């Protein structure tokens, strides 16, 4: 205690005592005033002033100043590099920063901001996102904006550095909103009413891409709809029974029908090329990848076909027999064929040898639908539950309860499972949470969508929308994409003062 007060006294005495300290504080004061005035000058005034100061220095002082300069300049290479024509290197250094670090770097100094804002760095950030984040890619494709990464500024003068710098946060926020919409937003609806003559018929199956939707109907027709205008562009006829399942790629459409045939259509000409007769009863599901086509039927059989993509013909390769009831659905990849049956089981077969691998048992009634990807199988059943299975072990990972009637259709991606049931409800489930055994079952269902007044027969979805078809003759597009056009908004913000309002 004594020591403390002594020390304090000592300090006080020192400050008020020596004349050199008086001078010190005077100089400090002058410095502060001088610096204040200096700060108020324009840049050119500051430089002029400094030139006067330098001229008044002696040689040793100048040398010292030179050292100081070179060390100051060298530290700030982000600013220095462009000044000596090496902006490529400055960009190279900054090119691999994440967007947060890039934002922070912009705030370091005026030069840094200039280097970053007037570089290709934000464009590169967007390009990187498109490569690594499927929602970014999906959004740009969906809106027809891929040109922002493929065109150069010479081709399209609107694609300036400023444009990309403003575009990045717009897309970032847009995607954040879309993700939030999936949890709590009200999706926008687009409805295609397929009911033409007042008699409800039903839409059993559908698939879509960016330009079209193809649906299969109970009235034996297949319809092709324009994805934008939602108008029916084409109707394909030929089947003599309901269209129960379909799949298309860029060239061909394959359909399975209650007339017991599988048919292959040429999408360019819109004509039916081949009818495959093998099954004795309705064909409940068809899937194809490249040249391999698999059909499953009420006749309890699974047929594996080889398609000749040139002639659009197919020949029967082998038949998988084992199920004791209708095979409602089949999915496959290069490793396995997975089938779901009314016999309450799921069977796994080798895709290479077509040999039986194992049976997954657990559902207490028939299995109506299935989706398989990687090592995960998700199935929906007439017992109203959904089950997640590990393909390798055959073990059931989780039972999802919530639907009150038969679960007729199911799809999943890496974040969510979406199911449709006979009570018209569509449920969105949290896949990652469902795979975590520590998470309680009652938080897995994220939301229930209810607008169909009949059984939900089929659904497909991506990061922005769900498309579902039903016995009520409607195709509903549940759109979680945020309305509005971020690209256009950026153009307007960047070019609001210019005449040029061209929207690319």
């Amino acid at each position: 205690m004594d020591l403390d007060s002594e020390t304090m006294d000592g300090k006080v005495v020192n400050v008020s005592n020596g004349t050199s300290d008086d001078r010190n504080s005077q100089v400090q004061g002058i410095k502060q005033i001088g610096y204040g005035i200096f700060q108020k000058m324009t840049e050119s005034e500051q430089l002029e002033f400094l030139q006067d100061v330098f001229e008044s220095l002696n040689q040793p002082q100048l040398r010292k100043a030179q050292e100081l300069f070179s060390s100051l300049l060298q530290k700030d290479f982000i600013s220095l590099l462009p000044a000596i024509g090496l902006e490529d290197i400055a960009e190279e250094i900054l090119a691999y920063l994440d967007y947060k670090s890039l934002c922070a770097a912009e705030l370091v100094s005026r030069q840094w901001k200039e280097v970053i804002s007037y570089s290709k760095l934000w464009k590169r950030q967007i390009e990187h996102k498109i490569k690594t984040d499927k929602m970014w890619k999906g959004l740009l494709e969906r809106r027809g904006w891929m040109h922002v990464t493929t065109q150069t500024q010479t081709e399209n003068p609107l694609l300036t550095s400023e444009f990309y710098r403003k575009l990045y946060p717009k897309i970032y926020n847009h995607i954040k909103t879309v993700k939030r919409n999936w949890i709590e937003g009200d999706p926008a609806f687009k409805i295609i009413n397929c009911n033409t003559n007042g008699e409800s018929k039903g839409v059993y199956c559908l698939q879509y891409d960016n330009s079209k939707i193809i649906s299969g109907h109970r009235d034996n027709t297949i319809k092709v709809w324009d994805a934008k205008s939602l108008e029916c562009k084409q109707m394909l006829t030929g089947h003599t029974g309901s269209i129960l399942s379909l799949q298309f790629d860029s060239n061909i459409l394959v359909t399975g029908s209650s007339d017991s045939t599988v048919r292959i259509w040429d999408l360019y000409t819109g004509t039916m090329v081949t009818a495959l007769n093998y099954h004795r009863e309705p064909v409940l599901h068809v899937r194809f990848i490249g040249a391999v086509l698999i059909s499953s039927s009420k006749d309890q059989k699974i047929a594996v076909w080889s398609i000749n993509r040139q002639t659009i013909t197919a020949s029967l390769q082998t038949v998988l027999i084992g199920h004791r009831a209708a095979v409602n659905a089949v999915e496959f990849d290069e490793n396995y064929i997975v089938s779901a049956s009314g016999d309450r089981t799921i069977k796994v077969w080798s895709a290479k040898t077509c040999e039986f691998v194992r049976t997954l048992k657990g559902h207490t009634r028939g299995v109506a639908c299935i989706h398989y990807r990687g090592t995960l199988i998700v199935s929906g059943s007439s017992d109203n539950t959904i089950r997640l299975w590990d393909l390798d072990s055959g073990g059931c990972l989780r039972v999802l309860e919530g639907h009150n009637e038969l679960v007729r259709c199911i799809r999943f991606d890496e974040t969510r499972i979406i199911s449709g049931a006979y009570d018209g409800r569509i449920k969105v489930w949290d896949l990652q949470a469902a795979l975590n055994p520590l998470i309680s079952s009652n938080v897995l269902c994220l939301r229930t969508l209810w607008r169909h007044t009949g059984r939900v027969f089929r659904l497909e979805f991506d990061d922005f929308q769900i498309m579902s078809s039903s016995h009520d003759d409607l195709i509903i597009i549940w759109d979680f994409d945020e309305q509005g056009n971020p690209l256009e908004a950026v153009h307007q913000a960047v070019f609001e003062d210019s005449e040029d309002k061209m929207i690319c």
Partner: protein
Amino acid sequence: MALVRVISSDGAAFLVSQRLAKRSGKLKTEIETFRKSSDNSEAQPEIRIVTIRAEILRLVLQWLQQHQNDPVLPANQNEQDGRGDAEMGQSQWDRDFLAPMDLGIVMELILAANHLEVKGLLDITCKLVESKITGRTVDEIRTAFKLKSDFKGNEEEQTRLENRWCVEN
């Protein structure tokens, strides 16, 4: 063994094997130019690098020597491939090599690697600088690079507003 004399801006001469020197795109071109213009195929080329001082040139040659058996990376590697190779190839030796350098030296090394066309060295030095920025706050970056804010008026506030989107959750 064919040798080449490489002379720094401050006059220090380094005698290195041509095989090693040719791992620098710039020195390779210089040696070939010398060969073409010289009548005597036995003559020892001498190359003056006026922009690089001895301390830095020594570091570049030291790095080349350590990496003399690595595959040579093309100078203009496709941007899209990024620096994957450099990242994988960055050895403990490289880390020890760079560790004692202050940013001023690293800067000179970047310029030298760029001038001498030594892609691998350029990659690891750029990456080192990048690591001083990644994941840091504005103030941390300013401290690392010994910089002060020189924004005028509300410029900094304006930029902060523009970039607010990336700090909000």
